[in-house]
Structures are given as C-alpha cells and as structure tokens.
C-alpha cells in the first residue's frame, strides 16, 4: 500500500522524458474521445495503445502493476457488471465497452504517476500553463505527507489495541474504529500541515517575490510527437469503430 503512494525520483522511466504537460495534453485528447463514444471498439483500441506504454513507464513487474491498478480494475469490472445486470437493453458487449472506457480514462493517470517526478509536474504546470506557484508547490508539499499518513494508520490501529479497543468481527464496531483512527490521523495531519506551512513560510515561500525555477521545463519535438501519437491513436480508434459499424457517439440520438 505504501509503495503505490510513495513519491520520489523515478528510476529512469522512459515515459518520464516526455514533458508532463505533453502527457496531460494527450490525456485530454483521449478523455474527450472516450467520453463521447459509447461503443466497444474505440476504448478497446485506446486501451491497447495505453498498455503498450506500460514498459516505458517502468511498469514491467506484474505485482507492482497490480498494486497500482487493482482499484481501477475493480471499478471497471463493477461498472461493466452493474450496467449489464441492471439495464434492460444493455448487452454483454455494452458492459465490456463501459468497463474498457473506465480503464482507458484512468490508465493515463497511472502512467503519469508511475513515470513522472511530481516536482517536474509542478515545474511544467507553473512554467507552461502558468498555474499559480502557490497552488502547485503547496499541493506538492502536502502530497509528501500522504505516505506518512499511511504508515501512521497502522501504528494508530495498534495503539488502540493497547488501550483495549478493537473491532473483532462486528462490522459496525469496525466502522467506528476506522472512524476513530481517521480522526486521530486528521488531528495529526492538521498539526503537521501547519508546521510544514511555517517551514515553507520561513524559506520565503509565497512572500510576494516572483518565484524563479532552478530546473526549468523544456518542450522538445518529441513532446509534440507524443501528442500527435495520442491524436493518431484516437483517429485510428474512431475510424475502426465507424468502419466496423460499432460507432455510437454520445451526442447522436
């Protein structure tokens, strides 16, 4: 659990060489196409292309891949199943299509997180898309605290057992226990957050001076190529969908 949330310099994933804003642009293209098509062929082609990028994002170890994607797989499967079971006119093909759509929408996010140092993401967003540095680096600092919370959850749970508090098999007691732990974690997180804010303040963060960037963020021809590739994949997906007769855009009808 900790591993999938931990942030840090990525050990040389090739996808990380694509500028984060190019990756985000490609994500927007893919998202627009997937959100407007309701067939099974379009998401199938898109997902196939995304899967080809897994090695480039350094996700070659199956166990690591599963750790990062199991909530996504679970979500996609249930979306598909629910639609098939509860809808009168939905066929199995429709269900598979909807499930693939969820995977196609979420997988680019998994790829981005796996391949890209969050600092480079903040750099790219503030330099190319003029996102506020206050927001980008503030969010970055907050993100660093997440793995700490995960580790703390376990120790707070054990701490409760020492006080005679555990849930056993009663689901209501379990919900209450998790609620109590969450509260303890929240109190800790608020305090740590305010200490972090003080530390950033003392280093001149958001003091009214225009912030410079020591690393910079360059756009290369390969970034344009990456976006063009995403557009091409979407074009191929829609074309094959139309040719196979499966094409069902959301606006028609």
């Amino acid at each position, binding site marked *: 659990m900790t591993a999938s949330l931990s942030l840090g310099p990525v050990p040389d994933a090739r996808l990380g060489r694509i500028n984060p804003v190019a990756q985000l642009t490609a994500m927007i293209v893919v998202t627009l196409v997937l959100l407007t098509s309701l067939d099974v062929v379009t998401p199938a082609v898109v997902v196939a292309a995304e899967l080809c990028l897994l090695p480039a994002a350094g996700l070659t170890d199956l166990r690591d891949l599963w750790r990062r994607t199991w909530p996504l797989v679970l979500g996609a499967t249930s979306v598909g199943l629910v639609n098939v079971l509860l809808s009168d006119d939905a066929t199995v093909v429709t269900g598979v299509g909807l499930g693939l759509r969820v995977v196609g929408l979420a997988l680019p996010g998994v790829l981005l997180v796996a391949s890209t140092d969050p600092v480079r993401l903040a750099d790219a967003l503030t330099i190319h898309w003029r996102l506020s540095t206050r927001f980008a680096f503030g969010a970055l600092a907050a993100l*660093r605290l997440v793995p700490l919370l995960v580790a703390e959850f376990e120790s*707070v749970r054990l701490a409760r057992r020492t006080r005679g508090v555990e849930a056993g098999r009663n689901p209501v007691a379990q919900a209450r226990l998790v609620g109590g732990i969450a509260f303890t974690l929240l109190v800790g997180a608020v305090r*740590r957050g305010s*200490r*972090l804010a003080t530390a950033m303040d*003392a*280093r001149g963060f958001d003091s009214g001076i225009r912030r410079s960037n020591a690393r910079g963020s360059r756009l290369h021809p390969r970034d344009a190529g990456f976006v063009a590739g995403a557009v091409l994949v979407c074009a191929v997906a829609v074309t094959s969908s139309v040719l196979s007769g499966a094409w069902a855009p959301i606006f028609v009808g």
Partner: protein
Amino acid sequence: MRLVARGLGVRHASRRAWALTGVDLVVEPGERLLLTGASGAGKSTLLAALAGILEAEGTEVTGELTVDGGPPRAARGRLGLLAQDPDSQLVMTRAGDDVAFGLENAGLPPEVIWPRVDEALAAVGFPYGRDRATQALSGGEKQRLVLAGALARRPGLLLLDEPTAQLDPDGAALVRTAVARATPGRTATVVVVDHDAEPWLPLVDRVVEVTPDGLVQHGPGWRPLPRTAGLRLPPGPDGTVLLAAQAAGFTYRGSSAPALSPSTTALRGGRVLAVTGRNGTGKSTLALLLAGLRAPTSGRVTASADLTGAVRTGSDEPHRWRAGELVSRIGTVFQHPEQQFLTGRLRDELAVGPLRSGRQAAAARATADELLERLGLSAFADANPYTLSGGQQRRLSVATALATSPQVLVLDEPTFGQDAATWRELVTLLAEQRAQGRAVAVVTHDADLVEVLADHRLALGPP
C-alpha cells in the same frame, strides 16, 4: 543581525496565563546564544516571536521586539529556521531541489542557485548528491538537509528550535556537527532553543535560561546539573519470568529483509529489561511482539500461566488475546503518546482501560482520579489530552497503561525529548512499578536511563 527584546510578553489565543512576560534580551550580530529551560517555560514562544511566526490571530504581544531595528516579520527574508520534526520541513522529492526551494522563492536565477546549493550541501557535510531521494534519508540526514536549505539563503539570523529532539544520539550529533561547521564566519546570529543544554555548550557563546520568573543569564563555565544527580531508585523483588521471547523474529509481508532477526529474552517480575541498539535493528518491532500487538513470523512469544490467567482462547501467546484481555495484562506506551489517546478529557482517558477490561464505572473513575492525583495532573482532569504539553502527554500515556494494573509494562522510548524534570518523574515512576513486582521492558537510546534503571540488557544487532 541584532535582536533586542524589551519588556516582551506573549499570551496565546484562548489562554489565561502569559507564555512569556517581561523578557529583556539583547543578542549581538554574529553571536551564538543557547536558550534553555524546562518544557513549557516559553522558549519556543520566544523563538517564534523572533522568527515573526507567532500565530497572528488572538495572540497578545506586549513590550518591544526588534530584529535589526525593525519588526521580526520584516526580517523574514534573512531568516533561517530549523524546527523539530524532520518530516514536516521538506518540500521536494530530491535533496538538491529542496535546498534550491528557498532560493527559487527569493527569485534568484538558476545559474546562481546551483553553485549555492552545492556549497550549502558541502557546508553541512551532506553525504549524498543532489539527486538523492529525500524520503530515503534518516532523521539526522533530513535535518542536515533542512539546515542546508536555510544556509543557502545566506541568513542573517539562524533559529534552531530543538533540532535534535526527535533524533537518536547519532543523528543528534550529526546535526550539531553540521551547525558548527556551517557557521564559521560569524555572518549569522545563531539562537538555539533546547532543554538539553549540555551538548550545545561547546558551540555557543552564551546561555540564557528561560524560567517562570524571567530570564537567567548563565556565565562562562556553567553546566546544567546532571539529570541523574541524587536519584535514588528502589530495587524490585525477585520475581518469576512472566513473558518470554524464544527466537522470536519478524518480517513484514512482501519484504525480503527481516525487521527483527530471531531474538530470545525474558521479562521477570521486579526487573527492568532495557532493549538497546541502533536504528533499524528492530527494537520497536520487538516491543510490538512483546506487547502482543503483532504475531512473530518466526519463533514464539509466550506468557507464563500467572500472566495468562483465564483468557477466553486459553492461548499463552499474547497476540491471540482479545484487546480487553490484553489491556489488563500487558500495558504498552508508544513513542508518540497522542496516537494512543481516545477521549476528549483526561479523566475519561484514564478510565478507558479499566472499563475495557471489564471493571465497573465507579471503580474505573476512582482509579482515574487516584492516578491523576499521583501524577500531579488533577488540575487538568477535564482538559483535552491534546492540549497538554509534551511532558504531560508522556506522563498521561504512562498513566493510562498503569490504570489497569498490568503485570507487564512495555515502553518504546519513554524519555525521548523530555526535559530533566519529566525525565526524573518518569524514571521514578518506572522504578516504583518495578518495586511493586511488575516486569518492565524499555526500548531506548537513552544511556542515562539504561544506567540508572536497567537490571538486564538486550543489545540488538543489525538483522
């Protein structure tokens, strides 16, 4: 930078008592000053005032405080700050980027930033390159990195707020060495706040003690009284083995390296066992096994028939006991007391354990009141545990473990970051438990604690 305080008083929001009153202090440019004093004396408040980071809302400030003639807030651009918690001061994912963070905030161009980053990393003796992942660093290394981040900004005033309180002795020594080597030119005024004065003495020019009656200046050659001075602790009776680990080891699921290699030890009634060893040797993991919080992945931890008594499962392995059974047999105190608090009032907090172990409400209440009295916390009976000072929270967490009169006590770093007064109280309290025939296990880096209290020692090596 020159610091001047005249008649300074500070009262925090929603507090009746003043945290500081009538403080007069002058610190000359380039001077190195140590502010010491007991927990809660107002040291950190004074430091926050100097840094210009006092909570703006509701805080009342009287008198005068200037940094180079102006308000502290205006001097913020030339301030360097190193606080206690290594985990809440780093922003970036790589070491070099983190040092650069403060320089970017000052709007400096990259060609100026990187040479300064390298210079600052070298000055604090940072042993890795710029690309080192910040989350892979130890506590002491993180603190050195934060110091480098402060120094890179070329501060005129460097404020250090108990920078070693959360570090083991090795990490603490690293940080002090880094402070000494990084400030040779006397270009910055340095103010250190620490209740543990001794280790800083070779580094500072002057010591000022913050007391409830005001500031006390200590002359050259002053040394604090050793905290063990005059301490007489009662020995324990000769008891039997209550809890034993037989080649008990632990490996986290999915991890290839063990967190604790097989260890054998025994806890006897009337005896204190001290578990020592460097960070990463599995000391805290052993405490979790002895406390019945985790099951050993190899070997066994077993309780004697006396300790086990009538548990429902009939098992002699504490990790199989229900929490309600565990709480009256083995009391555990974690390193961070606030993780164990469950209620919004001290009195309720102390009653939780007795109630959970099946005692009547009236009896639980009586136990709670008696413990409050004994630990000098009666005045706070209705206060929220989170609002207590660090030393008070520590005493409360020990008291909650004692409330159910367990025969075995397991404590993880009970004296960590405590001032001399709290230290003596805790040591005395633990010796009392021993005298009553209880078995006590302490996991600790604290050499003084081991010296005065330990009957048996277990030194863990790398797993």
